[in-house]
């Protein structure tokens, strides 16, 4: 499991704090979180409901701006970027995978994967080629022409992951990516994510399932918005 890529910091959160809501509904979702994810790493984020896991993911991808602190992706801070520029960062650097309903139902697998590239202005043929590469990498190259409702849950998750890493994207942000899958399928998906990380990507996986978190090199536990503990995998 050695990586041929130099280790690059793909995500850096420094003193990241996030406060949501106003008045009575005001809540500190994240308090002073420091986290770095470098290429090749699979980092799991665990914690109870309301601990701030999803907020961490939102902040990492620029979906929610920080209240204080900095978030940096591939060396470039996310602060102050307009919605358009944030979207561009997401197109080029960050991939999202959710527990379910990841795909646009009216596009085929290949079109789904190629979508961010096409939005970025890449020629259709090039984008499609990159999509095929990604699908093959995730061992579902033969599903390129299928629509999401013609695939199983595990296949759909793989397509979502493929979309997450298509092109030059290396930071994968996943929220319970295997939550809707059975044990064996879940394991296969995690294996693929693991191998992607081995090839130079990095993954930040939010989960409440310890067996899923166990796939990570580092398990970060959140509690009430703060980092409660970090468990490194013994090498």
């Amino acid at each position: 499991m050695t990586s041929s890529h130099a280790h690059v910091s793909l995500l850096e959160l420094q003193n990241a704090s996030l406060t949501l809501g106003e008045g009575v509904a005001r809540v500190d979702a994240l308090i002073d979180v420091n986290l770095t994810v470098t290429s090749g790493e699979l980092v799991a984020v665990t914690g109870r409901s309301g601990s701030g896991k999803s907020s961490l993911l939102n902040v990492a991808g620029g979906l929610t701006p920080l209240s204080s602190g900095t978030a940096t992706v591939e060396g470039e801070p996310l602060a102050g970027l307009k919605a358009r520029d944030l979207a561009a960062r997401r197109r080029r650097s960050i991939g999202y995978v959710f527990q379910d309903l990841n795909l646009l139902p009216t596009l085929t697998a290949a079109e789904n994967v190629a979508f961010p590239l096409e939005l970025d202005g890449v020629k259709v043929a090039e984008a499609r080629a990159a999509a095929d590469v990604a699908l093959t990498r995730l061992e579902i190259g033969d599903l390129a022409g299928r629509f999401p409702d013609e695939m199983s849950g595990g296949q759909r998750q793989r397509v979502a992951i493929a979309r997450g890493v298509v092109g030059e994207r290396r930071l994968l942000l996943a929220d319970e990516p295997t939550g809707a899958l059975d044990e064996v399928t879940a394991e296969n998906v995690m294996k693929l994510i693991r191998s992607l990380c081995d090839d130079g990507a990095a993954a930040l996986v939010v989960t409440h399932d310890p067996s899923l978190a166990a796939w990570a090199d580092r398990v970060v536990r959140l509690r009430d918005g703060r980092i409660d503990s970090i468990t490194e995998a013994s090498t």
Partner: protein
Amino acid sequence: MSVRDALLALLDRRPAYGYELKADFEAATGDGWPLNIGQVYSTLQRCERDDLATAQDEADDQGRRLWTISAEGREAVAEWLETPAAPVEATRDPFSLKVLMAIETSPDRVDDLIRDQRNATMSELQALTREKASVADGDLARQLHLDRSVLLVEAQVRWLDMVEARIDAHGKATS
């Protein structure tokens, strides 16, 4: 007791030598349950005493005797396989004991204790998961064993999460 039944089940398959039985046993359990050869022989002797198996009268040139299962032995094996085993009990688990005692006797240190325990358990889980990932596809027994280990350890982690949650809730309720 279970070892005896397991050895008998192996004998049921075909007669074997003591050392063969040890090797078969370990293979079938995915190397997750190492056996002492002495334990094997003593178990076999108990079986012979209980008329569940018999050994060859004459040893071979290396002093090893071939064991064969008896009719009563087969019955015992059948009964063992068909009777569902009792589920694992949680009460006597040293891990749980420690946690429960800590909650009872040193409530102010429970947080740290749980955290440390979880870290350790989690590391274990990570190691197990890594091991599982590297198992060859054909090695079913090993896979099964590792799955079980992972699940058990995972259960510990989950229980620790629950402990933490319940303590918090209890604290809020009584404060």
